[in-house]
């Protein structure tokens, strides 16, 4: 029996694994991941990780930026813990060998980032997530006792009487379906950007962990808060990191105007000003794009309207030194060179602020079940995450969840109940049936696409009640049709169609909660903008959405008060102070 079973080998999962191995080497810890850990999506993070180190910066300022950035929907006790622990987590990474970019005197260098009043974002050129993940992965290799289930796909949490007992997982390579018994389970499965058609997220970001927890009776929180990043490459959705703007890049419309000045984000200056213009928060920048589009000031392309990111004035040396990956991506995927050309960009789905409801130690209401990373909602991100807060988040809360789970496992040594095996068998039969194949029905990809467009139409940057209500029906319909899809692949060996089908189910589950929460929240806050309720309404909605899965499988949404410690709700001001 495994003491701590971690689902997910991204930054959060690996950090949790090391935390368990370090706090209590006698614990049996395992990491299950549907891709090899170093392929996890943390690898794509570019810009950096925030943590207070500089002189003149304070923990309180980082707290304030995070809370106001999140439009006061963050739990402030969680934010305080996060901000306090982020610097030591980043230094720990340094001690493990992370190649952070440096100042000439050998200290770690920091760069400005959107919505941050002080310069506090640590970076490793513009491949921060890549270096962070590989450093973590290579460090886990040091702990020979960490058991790895590489390329195993978890399909179900085994829960009995409000307590988790393990998971059912498929070894993708052989099709072997196993019940893995465990005293505690930490979900670290990352986000769910693939619910939308146009996203920076990798193929694996299908919200599995959220759906697993939700089906197992743990509520999801704040699912209506989906972050659009203002600068994605059209067609591929590849992210052009915020660091490009932090280094001095400009956003311009079709007429060459730095249009953000028209949206209360400050006045243009030649060099970047913190919390102003291009360094405003992502929700506001993405919303400004929509207004420009309505005013006809965007440029049409085969892949939708775009504005331009202008880096030309930075010069070749700065681009190559600070943001080389941006140049590489533009050259390889867009066939242009930012040194001489404008980069076409449009807002793109990037991050899920919501997730599995947890306390400050990653614990969910299901005993023994924890969650950390993008899949969890602690919540420090509120209604809008600030760029570079999520890498430190996966470290801080990955560690906390690991330590907490190890503690729980130590105190609960009882053997697993008989129902575990029975549940495992039911799940196996279900999967085996799915693998028998089906010659008729719609294709997984077609349903997926329909779901994605439904979500984009209903739960995009701006939302309205009627469209959301219609989406509720469309998604219910899609869920029925998804039970009868066509399945070509009946093989046991590396059957990715079977996996894609499971992912379609989890995405539909997640999609329903997004739409339900969005419909329920009749106000505009952060990334959730209702055209029918354009104002923030603190009296009614200074609260988290908490969504449970009703017995009939539909989402039922309630509200949960926000924890306020020291920062009462105020106006979000950018570029004016």
């Amino acid at each position: 029996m495994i003491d701590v079973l971690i689902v997910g080998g991204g930054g959060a999962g690996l950090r949790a694994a090391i935390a368990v191995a370090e706090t209590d080497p006698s614990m049996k810890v395992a990491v299950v991941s549907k891709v090899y850990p170093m392929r996890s999506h943390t690898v794509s993070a570019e810009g950096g990780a925030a943590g207070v180190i500089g002189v003149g910066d304070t923990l309180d300022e980082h707290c304030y930026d995070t809370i106001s950035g999140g439009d006061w929907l963050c739990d402030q006790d969680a934010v305080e813990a996060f901000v306090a622990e982020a610097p030591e987590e980043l230094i720990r990474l340094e001690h493990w060998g992370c190649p952070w970019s440096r100042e000439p005197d050998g200290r770690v260098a920091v760069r400005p980032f959107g919505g941050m009043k002080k310069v506090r974002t640590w970076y490793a050129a513009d491949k921060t997530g890549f270096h962070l993940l590989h450093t973590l992965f290579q460090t886990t290799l040091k702990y020979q006792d960490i058991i790895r289930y590489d390329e195993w796909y978890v399909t179900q949490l085994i829960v009995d009487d409000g307590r988790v007992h393990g998971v059912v997982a498929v070894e993708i390579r052989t099709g072997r379906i196993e019940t893995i018994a465990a005293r505690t389970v930490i979900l670290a499965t990352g986000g769910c950007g693939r619910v939308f058609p146009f996203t920076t997220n990798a193929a694996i970001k299908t919200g599995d962990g959220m759906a697993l927890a939700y089906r197992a009776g743990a509520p999801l929180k704040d699912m209506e808060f989906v972050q659009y990043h203002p600068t994605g490459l059209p067609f591929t959705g590849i992210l052009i990191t915020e660091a490009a703007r932090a280094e001095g890049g400009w956003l311009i419309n079709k007429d060459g105007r730095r249009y953000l000045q028209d949206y209360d984000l400050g006045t243009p200056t030649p060099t970047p000003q913190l919390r102003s213009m291009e360094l405003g928060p992502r929700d506001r920048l993405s919303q400004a794009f929509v207004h420009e589009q309505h005013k006809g000031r965007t440029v049409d392309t085969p892949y939708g309207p775009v504005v331009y990111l202008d880096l030309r004035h930075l010069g070749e040396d700065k681009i190559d030194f600070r943001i080389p990956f941006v140049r590489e991506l533009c050259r390889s995927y867009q066939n242009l060179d930012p040194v001489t050309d404008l980069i076409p960009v449009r807002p793109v789905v990037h991050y899920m602020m919501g997730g599995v409801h947890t306390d400050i130690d990653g614990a969910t209401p299901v005993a023994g079940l924890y969650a950390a990373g993008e899949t969890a909602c602690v919540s420090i991100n509120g209604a809008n995450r600030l760029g570079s807060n999520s890498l430190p988040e996966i470290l801080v809360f990955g560690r906390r969840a690991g330590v907490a789970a190890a503690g729980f496992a130590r105190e609960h040594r009882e053997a697993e109940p008989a129902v575990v095996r029975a549940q495992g068998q039911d799940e196996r039969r279900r999967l085996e049936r799915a693998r028998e194949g089906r010659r008729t029905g719609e294709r997984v990809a077609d349903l997926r696409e329909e779901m994605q467009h439904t979500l984009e139409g209903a739960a995009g940057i701006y939302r309205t009640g009627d469209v959301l209500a219609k989406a509720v029906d469309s998604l219910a319909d899609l869920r029925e049709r998804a039970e009868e899809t066509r399945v070509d692949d009946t093989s046991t060996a590396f059957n990715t169609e079977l996996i894609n089908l499971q992912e379609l189910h989890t995405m539909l589950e997640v999609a329903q909660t997004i739409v339900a929460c969005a419909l329920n929240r009749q106000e505009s806050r952060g990334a959730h903008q209702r055209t029918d309720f354009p104002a923030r309404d603190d009296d009614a909605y200074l609260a988290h959405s908490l969504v449970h899965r009703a017995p009939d499988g539909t989402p039922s949404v309630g509200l949960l008060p926000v924890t306020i410690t020291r920062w009462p709700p105020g106006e979000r001001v950018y570029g004016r102070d």
Partner: protein
Amino acid sequence: MAVTETDTRTILLEVARYRPGEDDKPVFQEYDVPLMPDWAVLDGLNYIKDQLDGSLSFRWSCRMGVCGSCGMNVNGEPRLTCGTFLTEYGEGPVRIEPLKGFPVIRDLVVDIDDFLAKLSSVRPWLVREGEELPLTTEYAQTPAQLEAYKQYSMCINCLLCYSACPVYVLDPDFLGPAAIALAQRYNLDSRDMGDRFDVLNLDDSVWGCVFVGDCTRVCPKHVDPAEAIQRYKVTAALRSVLPWSRR
């Protein structure tokens, strides 16, 4: 990604299929996919999987050249399929095979567990001796010291280099380019106090390399593993002759 225009040009993809239990050895299956100007080879494969044949298996994830999972042999060359465009191949056909040198699990999916074991064997983590610094201070490292190993830290473990290296393809015991480059990534890190001489100075390690250099040529991240290996040969040779010289 559905393609609506009926008059788009198409390109022929010849895709290696191997279904254990059904096929004794890989066979080629042909698919016509639209030749869109922005499509990478991976987009072509996804079109097949989504629209034509759901049973085709291959790995991919980030489609931005950083997760390292989509390496395949495209017209005989190991490539990241998310960063290789269909238009590169003119009229086609494009032949897509699994990476050479690895056992084929299914279709375009190869078994890379061997590499992971090799990676662990070179101790790819920062080795420190003595007192740890507290979690309030970082180890100082100047930009120049960072530069000394940075290039070798860029490896995404895509294994194109293994596929290109005839020594590895002929002899799977060879430690191989990426594992050695990653060992050097730590060896040359000013913060590292480890010693990997015991695992690198072996017949199947750096001495197995005959400097074909194709590893470096195909590396999409410019890691230059060939250089890493030759440099360690010098280190190892000097240490063998002059036992007191450590690095």
